[in-house]
């Protein structure tokens, strides 16, 4: 998958998951169709079978009953399935707290999912070189409102109403890794009330 380059340096560019030969244990995390990325990674010949490799998955689009057979079972040790992304994200800090240095994360899913996981990894003391992300799924954005400091989830249009203050925000490609969110700002900042028609940009 090639990402268009917007000219804004902070906009993340995602690649195919790459196995890190320095890893001493692996944790693969995906939602929905992100499982495809994990399956490709697990079939990599570079993966060292003697290392512990665990999987955390939350999915609806691929039947959960199939997800185990979708990944070749001899390529991982343990798979934990979750009913929702929220329950997966709640379980992740505990899983990381029990982990040791040398762990690498491989994350695959929608853009909001990638950064939700990345922020938990960071809070657990991981550096960005210790996790690897691939975008498969929705590009819907998390957008930060500098006027009220709320973040809106799942934004798919160029202009949206902030979930916090209700102002119409235009979202731009400036991305904060700290917050895992794009920056929005008031579209009618100059002339209040002049709000252009919104367009869907991503799904």
């Amino acid at each position: 998958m090639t990402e268009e380059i917007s000219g804004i340096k902070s906009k993340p560019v995602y690649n195919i998951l790459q196995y890190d030969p320095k890893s001493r244990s692996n944790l693969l995390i995906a939602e929905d169709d992100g499982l495809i990325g994990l399956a490709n990674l697990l079939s990599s010949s570079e993966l060292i079978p003697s290392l512990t490799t665990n999987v955390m998955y939350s999915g609806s689009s691929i039947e959960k009953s199939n997800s185990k057979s979708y990944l070749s079972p001899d390529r991982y040790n343990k798979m934990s399935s979750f009913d929702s992304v929220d329950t997966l994200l709640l379980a992740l800090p505990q899983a990381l707290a029990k982990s040791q240095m040398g762990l690498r994360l491989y994350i695959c899913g929608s853009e909001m999912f990638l950064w939700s996981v990345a922020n938990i990894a960071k809070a657990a003391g991981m550096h960005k070189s210790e996790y690897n992300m691939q975008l498969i799924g929705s590009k819907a954005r998390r957008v930060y409102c500098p006027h009220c400091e709320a973040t809106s989830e799942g934004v798919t249009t160029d202009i949206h109403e902030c979930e916090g203050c209700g102002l119409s925000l235009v979202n731009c490609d400036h991305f904060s890794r700290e917050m895992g969110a794009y920056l929005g700002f008031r579209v009618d900042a100059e002339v209040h009330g002049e709000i252009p028609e919104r367009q869907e940009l991503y799904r």
Partner: protein
Amino acid sequence: MSTNFSLTSRVVRADQVTPLIKHFSFERVDGKPFGPFSAGSHVVIGMNDGTESHKNPYSLVGSSNNFMEYEIAVRLDSTGRGGSLFMHNNIEVGSEIEIGSPFNLFPVYKPAKKHLMIAGGVGITPFMAYIDEMNLMHSNFELHYSVRDFENGAFAKELQDKYPNQVKLYIQANDVMANFNEILDNQPLGTHVYVCGPHQMVADALRVADELGWPISSVHSEEFKAPDPGNPFTVTLAKSNREINVRSRESLLEALENANIEIPYSCRGGACGFCKTEVIDGEINHRDYFLTDAEKASGKCMMPCISRAQGDHLTLNL
């Protein structure tokens, strides 16, 4: 730059803590507090032994919350260039010396979940300030400290008494060696490791960390190198049209300073990069840790604190 102040200070305590290590406390002659510093910082001590002036960097070993006193610990190097010998033989309570402003090349990474320190010999010094800070912040820390024998382990007893569960001593005379594989394996996610000690020890610890999958961002090290002597050489200063001689036992930086040429500096050991100087002509004997291999190969710049001429002449853009 690091040389932005030099404070005349007086020794208020001087204790021989091991046969080779002397622990000094200083206060400012004007009675004012020193500036704040962060754990891991070093200062450059300026002294004159009557024939030569010396500027040696030392880690601050005292509490970073004590602004009234700066503390250092100096290991005697009797085969060295004379700075540590002078500190041991001539600096006593009441002596006055110059202290430069602190600079930190080895800071604590505060967001780490756990701090793992590996020290060898006098490499304990930055960790004295670390541990004080970590204790105050209630951080999770562990110190693995290798010493030749108990008598030569500076601060070993006080550290062990104060932090019996966090400090592990390895006494080489008793054949107890630190095993970096054991120390670095199975450390919790989010741990940062800090290594300070002899060159080989630092290299070994860094290699093991890499093998165990530690990312570079979680691995920190510091080693100060005193400038080794070398052949004497001459230097032409292209801009000021001067010629100076560098003697065998002095560094190029010292020779420039003696000729009243001000070069910014901090670590004086080839690590910080402050004194990087442009070279116009002559082959360089690079001895620093700072320049990249490509920069070294270009022959266009050098670190005069530690590097010298390969031949008998260099031309600098000064």
